[in-house]
């Protein structure tokens, strides 16, 4: 191979290089540590205004979940005429389509595992749908590319012959794959993607049990207007709000609704900027932010850019009173692990995490499922589930409500039967692990989400969207992302502003 002289030359030269580098690294290492100590805030008496902005017009009653015994129903024009007394021969096969590789994989994988564990729980604890139909599932990788997602949907439908496709975490993948499913008239059940447009296309076989991006923006602005402003002792018009977001579909849709709603509520938007999620430098943006000196920062980003932002924000001396993130990187346990104390007391708008007021879940069976889920997820992944994983539980209404009704009332799990059953789903507040109820907007009555009906300028007419789903406000406290608002779901009161000692808090 290499002759001796060559080897010697490589050796000597590079040993010198290495020594130089070691010396320098040692010197560098000495300077490069930084510890933060945050003194936990003394007991803050928090007064939240009496009027909760979004009143849910349902009284929380006993749920209507179908428990694993069958009761004959009075026939109300079902597809097949006589009510069921015998169980039909049915095989339930679900296709799970998530980005398991590629740029979206780090966040999509959590959601995939959440959904998978949810199905496993139904199979193990309940014995399957209605206690007798075990759910078989097939996993497909959407590979973070819409064309591949569409191909996988094709494969799931034509080769694996699944009855339902469940997915997809990312909006482009949802749009591409659901297009294919709609063509084959196969039910597509979305648990994690938020783009409003998905359920505005008039698809008849698409269901989404997940709040929409437009509502994320509404909730955070409502929170700022109704809770943050009074707690900071300012009138909403006096608050300075900055909006930054990654320029992908997720960030853009949330930021847009942020802007609309905040303007409508009279908040003062001092900056709105986008950046590329894969950027290596945000210092320009941060300097701009410093110049705009906002009180509240609304941020939507993935993991690397959020970490980068927080690091450079600390380095450049950016101070702000309240930071509100909107899902993705802000709901990820890994972000907290990476940033540690710098991420404490940061808010996140997302569907509820496992850390909510369990009493808001009225059905004890549901509470049991939640605990089982936390246990299993921790065992599988090695850390406690965050918001993404918990979104996997969005699949439960499908397994515990829709499919049973399709089988018992309509006698089959054909796509039409499933959809007919879905239009009849009516789970009130407190009936799911997320606290919100389930009602899908049907083709005969397209409507906006409850939040949207109240706060959106122009109501959107959704079909297939769970109009009772809404995001809540969570806060990172003690390493977990906890629901702090609205009251009845909250585990504790929100802490506003960032307490002194926090690296981004103004007084430090």
């Amino acid at each position: 191979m290499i002759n001796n002289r060559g080897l010697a030359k490589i050796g000597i030269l590079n040993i010198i290089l290495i020594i130089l580098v070691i010396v320098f690294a040692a010197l560098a290492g000495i300077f490069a540590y930084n510890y933060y100590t945050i003194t936990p805030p003394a007991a803050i008496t928090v007064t939240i205004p009496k009027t909760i902005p979004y009143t849910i017009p349902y009284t929380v009653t006993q749920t209507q979940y179908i428990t694993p015994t069958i009761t004959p129903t009075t026939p109300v024009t079902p597809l097949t005429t006589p009510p069921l007394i015998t169980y039909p021969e049915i095989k339930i096969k679900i296709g799970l389509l998530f980005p398991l590789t590629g740029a979206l994989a780090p966040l999509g994988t959590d959601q995939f595992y959440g959904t998978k564990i949810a199905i496993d729980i139904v199979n193990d604890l309940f014995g399957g749908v209605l206690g007798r139909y075990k759910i078989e599932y097939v996993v497909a990788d959407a590979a973070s590319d819409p064309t591949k997602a569409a191909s996988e949907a094709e494969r799931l439908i034509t080769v694996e012959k699944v009855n339902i496709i469940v997915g997809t975490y990312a909006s482009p993948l949802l749009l591409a794959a659901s297009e294919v499913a709609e063509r084959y008239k196969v039910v597509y059940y979305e648990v994690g993607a938020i783009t409003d447009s998905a359920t505005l296309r008039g698809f008849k076989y698409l269901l989404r049990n997940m709040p929409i991006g437009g509502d994320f923006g509404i909730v955070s602005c409502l929170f700022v207007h109704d809770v943050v402003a009074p707690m900071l002792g300012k009138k909403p018009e006096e608050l300075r709000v900055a909006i930054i977001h990654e320029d992908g579909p997720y960030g853009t849709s949330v930021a847009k609704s942020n802007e609309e709603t905040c303007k409508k509520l009279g908040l003062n938007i001092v900056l709105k900027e986008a950046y590329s999620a894969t950027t290596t430098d945000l210092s320009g943006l941060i300097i701009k932010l410093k110049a705009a000196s906002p009180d509240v920062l609304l941020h939507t980003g993935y993991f690397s850019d959020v970490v980068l932002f927080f690091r450079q924000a600390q380095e450049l001396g950016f101070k702000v009173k309240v930071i509100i993130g909107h899902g993705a990187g802000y709901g990820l346990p890994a972000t907290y692990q990476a940033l540690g104390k710098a991420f404490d007391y940061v808010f996140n708008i997302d569907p509820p995490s496992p850390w909510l007021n369990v009493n808001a879940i009225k059905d004890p069976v549901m509470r049991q499922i939640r605990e089982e889920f936390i246990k299993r997820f921790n065992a599988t992944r090695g850390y406690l589930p965050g918001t993404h994983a918990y979104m996997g539980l969005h699949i439960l209404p499908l397994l515990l409500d829709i499919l049973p009704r399709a089988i018992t009332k309509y006698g089959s799990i054909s796509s039409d039967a499933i959809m007919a059953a879905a239009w009849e789903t009516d789970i009130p507040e407190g009936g799911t692990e997320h606290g919100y109820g389930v009602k899908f907007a049907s083709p005969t009555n397209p409507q906006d989400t409850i939040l949207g009906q109240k706060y959106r300028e122009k109501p959107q007419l959704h079909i297939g969207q769970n109009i009772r789903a809404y995001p809540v406000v969570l806060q990172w406290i003690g390493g977990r992302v906890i629901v702090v608002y609205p009251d009845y779901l909250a585990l504790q009161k929100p802490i506003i502003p960032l307490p002194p000692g926090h690296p981004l808090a103004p007084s430090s």
Partner: protein
Amino acid sequence: MTQLLKRINLDHITPLILLGGLSILPWIYYHDYVVHLIILSLMYAVISITWTLLGLTGAASLGHSAYFGLGAYFTIFSLKYWGLVSYLAIPIAILVSSAVAIMIGYITFRFGIAGIYFALTTIAFAEILRELFIYYREFTGGSLGVFVSPISSIGYFFYDSKIPYYYTLIILLLILYIYLMFSRQASKFLKILSAIGEDISTAASIGINILKYRLYAFLWGAIFTSLMGWFYVHYLRYVTPDVGFGLGLSVYVALLSIVANLRLPYILIASLILTPVGEVLRAVVGYQFAGLDVLVYGLLLMILVVVRALRKR
């Protein structure tokens, strides 16, 4: 008889036979997924074949996806915002991508940018287009992209079944191949392109207008690629800046061409083998080993290049 057989060039016949076989296939055995895979393969084949025209002259464009994206996006604009029929969107898509191709081609060829620099320039253009389409999100939908709702009416190319798409591509490829393989004009064209590729100075010295032929070849590529963009929109009805302007497509069509040794008849075969294999590999792997298909793809690329180089020795 043997005289006749000698005159028939096997190379030129093979793709025709293949296409003939493909057109009969759905009648013998129809499976949606198989048809889908073949449609994808044929689509890539078309792009790759016209890419090769420019590739023969020694200028490898790695930004071909720019035309794909432009074709796709302008098709959607025509359908959604300008209310045009599908078939009227074709000239628009072609016009736009031709304009861009002429611009890029002229700048690069005129200034003698070739080889690796040319490839880099085309990549840069595609990236810039991608960023622009993300930035002007009010018009283009940003990184979420645009989808189009199918309209079933005479003027539109939307169908529930795959068959029309399938046969459209087959017919297109038949026309392409028959023209490129059998017409005198085309074979002269190809010979000149190869001559430029082999020895550019000699070609210039015998009076071949390098700029003109390169631009022609480039235009061919751009037009057919944007046509495939149009096709993609009608088939999958959704496009994003990453799908439209991403590096993956550009690299893949270049790969197909090189696998086929830049020989047009073999490109079809290459695509029909590699595209389904790639898809199936990803499906078969299972989530425990997700990513194995990417690994194999990379390995294949490396082995391919090494083997080619070793064989040339």
